[in-house]
């Protein structure tokens, strides 16, 4: 390796083509997949890991004393350790496997929220949150007669210090913030908000669904009390998610779902619960899903966050520059493409987002249209619905160019003569 090359860093010499071959679906037809914020694609390594689990160590983990079950248990718990290391948890006990971010949030809301929020207290979120980080808190506030407070971003999509310092008060019991917005793509100042919220005595929950696939996460550095993420957004199988919680907090929480695998003793009247993390994992676990998640994390680490962010940036800059040339397009969030985590949400004068998406689909371009599970944000920005193109490291500049080409023709298809 030459000196320059070493200095430049590995990621300067990698290209999406190095990875696209690992994703069979990307090689099929001429589809441009720009809905990565909804779910990512899965590399062969992930599907192979699932297959390998079922073909070599399939048994019900955690209880069996025979080889296959011991093996299944070890693979399951190994995956837990890999997740713990991936997000910088102090120990694997702090990692609870769930189905997705939504379930993780509900676990916190039901098990921690309902027990710790009282009448007159406040729960603070932002107007940018995904429904998964809104509805559970509406439930808690309704049940407990507490107040749900919304932080609002400025025109660039930023939650300013003035904003959060004026709204997080001593009454706040829980502050729950998205780490990266799935509409603006902006990274919220969760570390700063956590520090301030902790000063005020609140517990801090972070929704990492959109962050974990794109930026390195260290829950201890962020000082998150809880952190949630979904496997399917970072190339893992569907059906596996994560809730991180600080040990001291998890230990004092009631279980949420109850049943097999999460108990010590059960009598006709009562039960005592297993230790962490099992206390929160009721029923037969999704071991194959966890093993798939481990494979996805390892793949992601092989690609490296360095390359991921460089490639996303390159594509986003190109995309936003191209879109700015189309005067009838409005882009939401920051004017700086580097602050978009590969997510570009936009509207087009006179064309409903659903029509944009349908017309683009005719050209095999996959973008999302709708409220992106963030209706309060749609109401805030005054758009009933928006279109969203979101890229990942395996997307290419050539795809962006083709997307722009097709996009520039949508208004003509819709009958406008620009």
């Amino acid at each position, binding site marked *: 390796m030459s000196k320059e090359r070493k200095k430049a860093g590995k990621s300067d010499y990698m290209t999406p083509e190095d990875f696209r071959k690992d994703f069979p679906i990307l090689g099929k037809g001429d589809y441009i997949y720009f809905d990565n914020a909804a779910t990512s694609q899965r590399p062969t390594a992930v599907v192979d890991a699932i297959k390998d689990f079922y073909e070599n160590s399939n048994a019900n983990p955690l209880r069996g004393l025979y080889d296959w079950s011991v093996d299944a248990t070890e693979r399951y718990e190994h995956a837990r350790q890999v997740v713990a290391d991936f997000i910088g948890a102090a120990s694997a006990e702090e990692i609870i496997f769930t189905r997705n971010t939504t379930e993780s949030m509900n676990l916190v809301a039901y098990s921690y929220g309902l027990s710790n929020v009282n009448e007159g207290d406040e729960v603070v979120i932002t107007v940018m949150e995904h429904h998964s980080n809104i509805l559970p808190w509406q439930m808690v506030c309704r049940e407990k007669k507490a107040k749900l407070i919304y932080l609002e971003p400025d025109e660039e999509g930023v939650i300013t210090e003035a904003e959060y310092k004026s709204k997080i008060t001593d009454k706040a019991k829980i502050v729950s913030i998205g780490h990266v917005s799935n509409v603006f793509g902006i990274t919220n100042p969760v570390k700063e908000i956590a520090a301030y919220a902790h000063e005020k005595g609140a517990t801090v929950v972070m929704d990492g669904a959109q962050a974990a696939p794109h930026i390195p996460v260290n829950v201890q550095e962020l000082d998150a009390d809880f952190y949630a993420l979904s496997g399917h957004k970072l190339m893992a199988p569907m059906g596996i998610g994560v809730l991180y919680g600080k040990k001291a907090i998890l230990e004092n929480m009631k279980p949420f779902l109850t049943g097999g695998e999460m108990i010590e003793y059960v009598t006709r009247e009562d039960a005592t619960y297993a230790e962490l993390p099992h206390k929160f994992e009721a029923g037969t676990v999704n071991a194959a899903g966890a093993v798939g998640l481990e494979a996805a994390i390892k793949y992601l680490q092989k690609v490296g966050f360095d390359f991921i962010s460089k490639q996303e940036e390159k594509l986003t800059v190109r995309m936003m520059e191209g879109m700015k040339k189309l005067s009838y397009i409005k882009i939401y969030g920051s004017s700086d493409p580097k602050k978009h985590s590969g997510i570009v949400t936009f509207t087009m004068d006179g064309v409903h987002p659903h*029509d944009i998406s*349908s*017309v683009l689909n005719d050209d095999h371009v996959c973008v999302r249209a709708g409220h992106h599970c963030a209706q309060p944000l749609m109401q805030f920005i005054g758009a009933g619905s928006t279109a969203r193109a979101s890229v990942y490291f395996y997307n290419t500049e050539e795809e962006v160019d083709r997307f722009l080409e097709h996009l520039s023709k949508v208004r003509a298809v819709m009958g406008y003569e620009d």
Partner: protein
Amino acid sequence: MDLKGLYREIVNEHNLRPVHKGEMENPDLVLRGVNPSCGDDITLQLKVVDGVIDDAMFSGSGCAISQASVDMMADQIIGRSKEDAIKLAGTFMGMIKGEIKEEEQLEELDEAAALQDISHMPARVKCAVLGWKTMQEMLEHPEKAGSVSTEGE
């Protein structure tokens, strides 16, 4: 399916230059119809004289397919009896669900039959049927169809 052709040949005309869009004075029946997942949101207004639809108009916003579909529908139901209009809604929805395919039946729908290809686009079915469903609902359950001022909120 060539969706672009559909837009160019049928949808755009009704979407960009709808004939029946606007507010009707003193409608007899008014009902709001909404597709939560798309944000399509229309308010349909009918004037009914002696059981016959004398006029139909709509306001609101939505995607091109929903707007065009309701405009085409208005064309088709004006002058029909309530019963006839309800029957026609059944035909339209049957067509969109892919259950009715016979030319003869579809002829009844006239221009609205152009939306037949939507049956291959499950995600847009709701858009295409919104107007028809709202019309059917208000004729079958006139008690739900209040005045604009209360329902249009």
